[in-house]
């Protein structure tokens, strides 16, 4: 499946390709490569073939297909898929009744003509930055299967990075779309908090959960994002925003935008190549300006506290009845989270408002901010420790150093894949003000057009 979503939809609409063939190609690729990559935990081949045949019949009858006609896609296993228990990477959830309806975003993509081919591996209950999973085994990086995909949307990064599907959906609470996008060399969009419906997805931290797409091009990202916009009464947290399409805007270029590189916290504490990737992007845009995002370390800390507390609250009944069935790495954090004083959580939520006000003030002077996505390349699978700035630290929590402060206040971000050298891919966060996904995507597209952001298919599992 080397074609982009844009190419597939155009070919299907023009009658040069049938949806049936597009889906058969995707299923063949998954069958061939998933044993090495472990990206998919469910493949819904029968459903996908039936939907493709039905779409082809409608096109043959003269119906105009949707903008994603015949495009295969897959979703992190926390999205409801009719007929499957929503496992969310866990053992416990496999005992749930099968979902009776697809999640809201699955329905939106299929309404636009896309066709779901499967559910994707993920870190248990999304409490993860590695893509490892104690029950299903780790998802593997298509650029080097000995390395992590990143997480928690690990299968989403792996499936798109390997070219098994042109579009996958993930969730991002503290970085779980952006991290696997960076490690697997794909584009990933975490929209503004409250933009896309979360209905029919398994939650993690209600205060921070976002859903969004990963792809190998900005055009595909925009295509999927536009198809998923729109108010959904089933999501009580979703903001009252009109549909604001971006597909027509992404080619506008970066000229006229005020863009700066994040300094301070975002310019230290990572491996040099991560900052080199940001420099490559900044140079391509002709940037010299830097901006300091104040109190970023505290923002990360506050996100950490709220995450642990809310996740523990969500899981308390299961911790009381089935603690032994969790991934131990997740269980120990959830139990610890249940002991957090409420006063700390309240204070962290008040700090969130304070931090938001300070960061929003920055957007009076800049439109877009660049920062590294991760402080390191994809570590090896199972690597528990790493060295950052000369200090040995735990790998898991520190992968999210640069993503957590941004999702903490819900800013829209595109992680763009940049390779400053011949090593594994890295990501650069293109961060915009709330509701300005269009600006982040414009800059991402400018970087893609300049040749510094690209997502060649990872084929290392073939070696």
């Amino acid at each position, binding site marked *: 499946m080397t074609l982009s979503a844009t190419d597939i939809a155009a070919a299907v609409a023009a009658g040069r390709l049938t949806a049936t063939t597009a889906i058969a190609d995707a299923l063949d690729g998954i069958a061939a490569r998933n044993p090495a990559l472990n990206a998919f935990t469910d493949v819904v081949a029968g459903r996908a073939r039936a939907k493709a045949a039905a779409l082809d019949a409608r096109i043959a009858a003269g119906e105009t297909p949707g903008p994603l006609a015949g495009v295969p896609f897959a979703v992190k296993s926390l999205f409801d898929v009719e007929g499957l228990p929503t496992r969310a990477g866990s053992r416990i959830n496999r005992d749930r009744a099968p979902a009776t309806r697809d999640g809201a975003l699955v329905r939106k993509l299929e309404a636009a003509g896309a066709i779901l081919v499967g559910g994707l591996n993920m870190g248990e209950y999304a409490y993860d930055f590695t893509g490892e999973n104690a029950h299903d085994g780790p998802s593997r990086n298509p650029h080097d299967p000995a390395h992590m995909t990143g997480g928690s949307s690990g299968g989403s990064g792996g499936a798109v990075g390997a070219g098994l599907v042109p579009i996958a959906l993930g969730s991002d609470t503290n970085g779980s779309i952006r991290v696997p996008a960076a490690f697997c060399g794909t584009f990933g969009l975490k929209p*503004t*908090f*409250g*933009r896309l419906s979360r209905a029919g997805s398994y939650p993690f931290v209600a*205060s921070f959960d976002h859903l969004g797409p990963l792809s190998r091009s900005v055009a595909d990202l925009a295509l999927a994002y536009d198809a998923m916009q729109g108010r959904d009464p089933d999501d009580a947290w979703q*903001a009252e925003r009109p549909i604001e399409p971006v597909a027509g805007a992404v080619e506008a270029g970066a000229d006229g935008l005020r863009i700066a590189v994040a300094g301070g916290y975002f310019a230290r504490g990572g491996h040099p190549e991560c900052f080199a990737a940001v420099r490559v992007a900044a140079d391509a845009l002709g940037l010299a300006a830097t901006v300091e995002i104040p*109190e970023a*370390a*505290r923002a*990360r*800390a*506050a996100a*950490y*506290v709220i995450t*642990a507390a809310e996740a523990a609250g969500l899981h*308390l009944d299961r*911790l*009381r009845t089935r*603690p*032994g069935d969790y991934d*131990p790495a997740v*269980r*120990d*954090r959830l*139990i*610890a*989270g*249940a*002991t*957090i004083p409420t006063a*700390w959580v*309240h*204070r*962290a*939520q*008040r*700090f*969130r*408002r*304070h931090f*938001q006000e300070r960061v929003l003030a920055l957007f009076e002077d800049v439109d877009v901010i660049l920062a590294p996505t991760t402080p390191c390349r994809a570590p090896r699978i199972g690597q528990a420790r790493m060295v950052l700035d000369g200090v040995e630290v735990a790998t898991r*929590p520190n992968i999210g150093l640069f993503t957590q402060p941004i999702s903490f*206040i*819900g*800013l829209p971000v595109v992680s763009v894949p940049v390779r400053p050298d011949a090593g594994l891919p890295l990501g650069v966060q293109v961060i915009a003000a*709330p*509701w300005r996904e269009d600006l982040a995507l414009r800059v991402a597209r400018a970087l893609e057009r300049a040749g510094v952001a690209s997502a060649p298919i990872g084929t290392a599992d073939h070696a």
Partner: protein
Amino acid sequence: MTSPPLTDEAAGAVVDAMIPLLGIPMAPEWRDAVAANVKATAAAAALVLEVPLDDAVEPAPVFRA
């Protein structure tokens, strides 16, 4: 206002005190890892708690971007 970092012993004591209240059947071999996470969370919270906030700063559980 800063508090001294939580010691391993104090973190363990927090776990021992809270587990009966929470009703979680924790295996003894999980205790040290849970306590290590309590300690890490306390360190994170300390960073947040040392910021003085005006009483008028509203919490953000209902958050509008």
